[in-house]
Each structure stands twice: as C-alpha cells, then as structure tokens.
C-alpha cells in the first residue's frame, strides 16, 4: 500500500494516462477524477503557496476529466 497522498495522486495520474491511451474513457475518467481529488487533499496538507499551486493543478485535472466525460457522452449518444 502506498504511504502518501502524493503517491496516490501519481498512481491515479499514471493509470489515467494509460487508460486514455487505450481509449478506455470510463476508467480514464475515474482515475483522473481520483487524481484531482488527491491533488485537492495535497493542497490541504501544504502551506499557502504550495497549496494554491496544487489547487491549480487539481482544476487542470478536472478540466481533463470534463473533456473525457464529454467524449463519453458523445459516444453514448451515438451508440
């Protein structure tokens, strides 16, 4: 078991990248959202400067998650 939030964030980011390259959007979405969640947790553990940087990072991941969700919705509509 990983021992830190930073490790978990990285694990989910790697998983998201892998699933995205395999075009498994459902899994990619799940891991991107989890990565964003852990980034927010990291922000909570840091001082102000670093925390704000992590919050920006989290919003970036949420943007990606939104894009993946949009792709999933389009696919569902077509199917």
């Amino acid at each position, binding site marked *: 078991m990983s*021992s830190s939030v930073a490790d*978990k964030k990285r694990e989910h980011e790697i998983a998201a990248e892998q699933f995205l390259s395999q075009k498994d959007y459902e899994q990619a979405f799940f891991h991107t959202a989890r990565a964003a969640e*852990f980034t*927010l947790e990291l922000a909570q553990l840091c001082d102000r400067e670093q925390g704000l940087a992590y919050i920006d990072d989290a919003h970036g991941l949420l943007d990606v998650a939104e894009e993946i969700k949009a792709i999933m919705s389009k696919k569902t509509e077509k199917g």
Partner: protein
Amino acid sequence: MALKDLFISKTEREKRKRLARRKAFRQAERAMDTVNTEIARMRAKRDKLWDEAKAYKRDGQKLAVQRTLKSYRAQEMHISNMEMKRWGFEQILLKMRLAETDQAFASALQGLNAVQFAPPESLESTLEEIGLKADDFEDNNNIWRTIYDSEMANAEIANGSSIPSIDELDIFLEDEVVVERSELAATINQPVEQVKTNTSPSSRYEIPPSELDQKIGAGHIRLKKLLGEGR
C-alpha cells in the same frame, strides 16, 4: 364463491368482496414495509462491514480486508436483488391499484345513476358505498406516498445498477485510509509512516476555514458535480 355466499344479497356480496380486496391490499403494503425494513437492516450491516474493512486496511491486514470486502460486496448484491424484487412488487401493486380505480369510477357512476332514480330507502346503502369509496381514495393516497418515499430514498440504487468489484472497492478503501493518515500526519506534524489513524474523520480536528480551505472546498464541489454524486 363459497356455498354460504349463495344465500346473501348481491349488495352484501359486493361489500364483502370489496372488504376482502382492501384487506389484500393492506397485506401487500405490510409485505412491502417488511421488505423495506429488511433492506434498511442490510444497508446498516453493509456500512458496518465497510468500516471493519477500513480498520483492517489501517492495520495492513490484507487477507482480512479481502474477506470483509467480499462480505461487503455480497451484501451489496443482496440489497440490489431485494431492491429489484421490491420494485417489481411495487409495480404489480400499482397496476392492481389502478385497475381498482377504474372499477371504482365505474361503480361510482352506477351509484350516481342509482341515486338519481332510487327510492329513499336505497339512498342509505349508496351513501355507505360512497363512504367506502372515500376510504379507498385514502388508501390510494397512502400507496402513492409509500411509492414516492421509497423511490426518493433509493434513488442512488436506481441510478447505478453496477456494483463495484472487489478491486475497485479496495481502491476506494485504500484511498480513504491514506487520506485520513496524511491529514492526521499534517495536523500533528509527524511523518506519515509513523501515524496510525484510529479516530473517526468527524472527531479528528477542526481547522478554521482559510482562503486556501475555501478554494479547496470549491474544488471539491466541482469534483462532486462532475462525478454526479459521492460515495
């Protein structure tokens, strides 16, 4: 129809039939209540298993985690099956109820017709019938209320029919434990590896909200919105 029923009047026979029908509906409603209670009990057990699994995870007891998660998942499947059966039963009950409404309309119209041309002595029995119809109407309202309440309470089950796999549950569990441990480590200023969480999240500590907290909160809101709902 029983033999003794041959010697009673048509009105009395109808009345008995109606009473029997109402009794059957009440019995059906009681059965639904029993199922709802059972589902609530199973949910409580499921939540307890989740907490147990989390405790094992904190202690690093992998086998115990797997065993408890299996029980958790089995419980979730039983709940899902029970929900499915209850849904089917509710639909049947509703259809029967609607059929009864049709019959009630027809009878009420007949009743009105009878009142217009009836001699005064038959008015009493007609009014009695109207009284029974009013009771039926109240029963209908109760049925609708029950269906509405149960639908609202179980919207989460209706939303997602798939139950997470053991691996997915394990990810959720590990994530929860890691977050708890890291937050506690930051609070007491100790390395994460040395921290053991044995307190509930709600009783851990309280930090006054800062600008950073507010931004983090906004991030969580965006995340929840994106996910539709949280666990």
